């Protein structure tokens, strides 16, 4: 059993046209930069991408949109992205918008073997249309199903050869949830260490959820909204 692969190209080698893939990150924070670049190089297309956001025009998932590799986005917020908007309006791109907590919880459900979960988010709104509703203690909930994805691609701060992962600050976000939810989970990390190099009490994603791991290179870690204190 060896989970360690050489690089992003090897990690994503078998991702195919039409696959459903999850990509961790919130905005441009904690996104799997190396794997996105490899997916662009590979040119795989007709992908369904489950990711909270869709990147910006020239970074993150935006790079895959530029190459018309994405058939459908499942996201909670698809911000400032002109190419995204163009493809959406022209009908080239399908978009399914779902509440952010529902997105997170549907990943959790997959990782925890729960086929569906109840959430109040969207009750009484168009999000509830066509969905099964149920009342608990007088409050309305939607039944939301666990995601199914061929691949989950996540970015962590540190990882070990067993696939254990630790995230840094708010770069954690959806990464540990998607790591649990993929049929095959690929992790790129800033620092890859040997087994025993991480504190077992501080691991966010146990290695059982991770199938392939590699140490990424040349992280740009672009900041979307640089904001500083007035002095």
């Amino acid at each position, binding site marked *: 059993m060896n989970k360690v692969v050489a690089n992003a190209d090897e990690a994503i080698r078998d991702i195919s046209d039409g696959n459903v893939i999850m990509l961790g990150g919130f905005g441009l924070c904690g996104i799997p930069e190396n794997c996105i670049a490899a997916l662009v190089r590979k040119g795989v297309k007709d992908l369904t991408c489950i990711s909270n956001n869709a990147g910006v025009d020239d970074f993150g998932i935006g790079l895959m949109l530029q190459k018309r590799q994405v058939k459908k986005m499942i996201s909670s917020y698809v911000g400032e992205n002109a190419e995204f908007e163009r493809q959406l309006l022209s009908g080239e791109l399908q978009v399914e918008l779902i509440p952010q907590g529902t997105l997170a919880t549907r990943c959790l459900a997959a990782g925890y073997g729960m086929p569906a979960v109840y959430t109040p988010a969207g*009750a009484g709104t168009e999000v509830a249309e066509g969905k099964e509703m149920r009342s608990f203690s007088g409050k309305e909930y939607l039944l939301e199903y666990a995601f199914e994805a061929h691949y989950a691609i996540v970015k962590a701060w540190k990882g070990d050869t067993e696939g254990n992962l630790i995230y840094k600050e708010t770069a954690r976000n959806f990464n540990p949830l998607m790591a649990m939810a993929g049929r095959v989970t690929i992790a790129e990390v800033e620092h890859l260490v040997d087994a025993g190099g991480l504190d077992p009490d501080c691991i966010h994603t146990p290695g059982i959820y991770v199938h392939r791991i590699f140490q990424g290179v040349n992280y740009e870690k672009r900041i979307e909204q640089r904001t500083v204190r*007035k002095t």
Partner: protein
Amino acid sequence: MPLTKEQIAQRIAKELRDGFYVNLGIGIPTLVANYIPAGIKVVLQSENGLLGIGPFPEEGKEDPDLINAGKQTITTIPGSAFFDSAMSFGMIRAGKVDLTVLGAMEVSEKGDIANWKIPGKMVKGMGGAMDLVASAKNIIVAMVHTNPKGESKLLSYCTLPLTGVRCVKKIVTDLAVLDVTENGFKLLERAPGISIDEIKTKTEGKLIVPGEIPEMSF
């Protein structure tokens, strides 16, 4: 005179209580953090996975791994904790967040809120707003009383697609502070120099005026 955005934030900050865990939405709500009253402590939650938001970083100290839900670079305070998005919305759904402050395009007299979608315009998504409004124990809306055309945004019924139903508890606008009650918007305070008549005129939904209405003071 109508309140400035800063004054709306300042007025909302008076609703904070010691020990509150608070989620502040993007825009005016974010400014509330600048006016936390002396002597009380609140902990700010960011739904992307942080309890204990600190001030914006000093120039040059920005950390790309540390952002708020508006994707702005931030810092943390001592005693902060990071967690994943499922736990973040878990604590929101479980009612552990004491107060949510967010903006709105429209609010109805029943407390319905619309703030995510305008038909005909590019829809960017609801982000975490639907989870927040469906779950929060206490929601205060920060908004301008009327739209740029001068039309009321406090309505009998929302005309825009809803974000959540019967969830808003209190509204602070540039003109007034109002509670959402079973019988409609109840006027609590006026902005300095704003008449009850002006508020009546600019409120399309049912407005209750319980006698004398004090002016806000800052």
